């Protein structure tokens, strides 16, 4: 019982944390992707290095890029909820 209460409390904390983190993007705090920093480091230490391949396709705009990442999240959530609901049915049948 105590464990369950602890888990629920953790859940609330995680949601609050996520909420704050997501909101921070809306405030545009100027965070940079860690891959961008890695690329800067590579190019600083190896100025002659030229990437020998570029992505086959890149989203045309920032908006499109955000939309596609949002699509991945939405698709993942939809699949997660589907499998979560289906799990009970499968278990009931196997009993």
């Amino acid at each position, binding site marked *: 019982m105590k464990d369950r209460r602890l888990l629920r409390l*953790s859940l609330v904390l995680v949601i609050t944390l996520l909420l704050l983190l997501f909101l921070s993007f809306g405030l545009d705090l100027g965070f940079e*992707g*860690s891959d961008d920093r*890695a690329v800067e480091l590579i190019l600083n230490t190896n100025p002659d290095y030229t990437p020998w391949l*570029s*992505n086959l396709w890149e989203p045309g705009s920032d908006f499109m890029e955000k939309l596609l990442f949002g699509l991945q999240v939405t698709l993942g959530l939809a699949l*997660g909820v589907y499998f979560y609901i289906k*799990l009970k049915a499968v278990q009931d049948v196997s009993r």
Partner: protein
Amino acid sequence: MRTAILIIALILLFFYHAEAYAMHIMEGFLPLFWCLFWYAAYIPFLLLGLSHIRKKIMSDASGKVVLGFAGAFAFVLSALKLPSVTGSCSHPTGVGLGAILFGPLPMAVIGGIVLLFQALLLAHGGLSTLGANSFSMAVAGHFISYWVYRAARRAGVSRNVSVFLGAALGDLATYAVTSLQLALAFPDKIGGFFLSFLKFAGIFAVTQVPLAIAEGIITVIVLDLLEQRAKGAVETLIEEEGLR
């Protein structure tokens, strides 16, 4: 409980306007030799993972559904780019859940699929670096999660703490291996491999620490939700891995 899940989903979707930052090695940013090397290192795990899924999971209805859920979990978490204390962004990997439930091999396949999707549709990572990125996230991350969870359980640590440690350290290991891959390809001219590794780890692994902790907590909660939903199925899976 369904309502709680729905609320979480809606919160995530509503506030999902993160900048599109990538965390894996970008397309063309590994020399050809290292691209081939990491593909060669990843492919055996991919084949073993496919064989494991076909032989052990596809014959079990509950196992298939839980594997689908673990894949969806990795899919969502690896798209959540969050700011960290270092001033840069990264994302969780979602590797721990599947590794704890199924062992590391099946998740080598699932992780590869997630990264392929991101490389093709989102220009996140790339095809040339897919082998390296898959090895770090879908192999190293899963194996570390699995081993840490197993060692913690055998040492008598409680299940929730073991899950937390497995998921958090698996996440962290992913980026430690990414740093190692970059350090091997781009050793520092003065300090060599070691200094280069420290520099890349300062970017990737340090950024990842708070996110790894968050991923550990989320994995504990999600595994608990799964168990509440289908106690028998989840227990059987964990038992089969000899990890209860």
